[in-house]
């Protein structure tokens, strides 16, 4: 088994006092104390159109359905006006928009990966060159 640690640190001065969150998780297989040991590796994709495209389908790699899979995605750009729309499932299906990654934004989410409803799609907001990086940790 592998040991994969992920730490999030959030600092904010929205309140009149500082808000700080720091949490570390060790990625484990579903319901066990055994670490996740599979990954797609870190990938980078470049886009030049505003078409919605697949980032990862649930069955492209041997992801365990309903496992403790994790997906990391980051918009590598710096322009806060440009974003990637990240959705689950195809727009022709009952699409669910998770959110929009603006320049520099990142996300780390668990991934059910049990059916085509969980396919991950992205859609750039502009036809200017936009790049994202992503990595999937799975069992």
């Amino acid at each position: 088994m592998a040991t994969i640690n992920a730490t999030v640190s959030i600092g904010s001065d929205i309140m009149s006092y500082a808000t700080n969150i720091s949490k570390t998780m060790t990625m484990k297989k579903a319901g066990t104390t055994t670490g996740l040991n599979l990954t797609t590796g870190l990938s980078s994709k470049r886009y030049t159109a505003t078409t919605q495209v697949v980032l990862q389908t649930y069955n492209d790699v041997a992801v365990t359905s309903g496992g403790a899979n994790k997906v990391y995605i980051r918009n590598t750009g710096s322009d806060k006006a440009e974003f990637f729309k990240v959705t689950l499932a195809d727009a022709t299906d009952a699409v669910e928009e998770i959110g929009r990654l603006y320049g520099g934004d990142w996300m780390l989410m668990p991934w059910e990966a049990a059916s085509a409803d969980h396919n991950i799609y992205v859609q750039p907001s502009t036809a200017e060159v936009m790049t994202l990086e992503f990595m999937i940790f799975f069992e």
Partner: protein
Amino acid sequence: MATTTASVSISSSDLQVGNQLALNASTTCMKAGLTTGLEKIEMGKNTLTVADGSTSLKLATTAGVDGASKVYLCNNATDETFYIRLDLHDTIVGRLYAGDWLFIPWSQNDTTNELVIQAIGGSCPYEYAIFKEDETVVAGA
């Protein structure tokens, strides 16, 4: 303006042979399409029981539609078989097992786009924070 910074560090020395994983990223959370920081925050902790069933963590509201909100959620359970299932409206996003956290954007592209959580296996203490642009408030009776 307020400044909210979110950073992540993912590391492993044995995931890929001969390749040390050391991934780091950081972003300042801005309002949608702007260089103005998010100005609203909501935080909390609770314990979700199996009997609670599907529970709304947060409803989407008109004022939040197409915003750049960010959501942090952590399952603080210690039994490795207990997990929190996160749904976005009627679609399963994934499972947060004991000790797992997530950080996602939440654009509330329509007002049905609520965040729903459910404890599976046993009670799950959890904590969350939502950094948001705006929210439609409910008028007093």
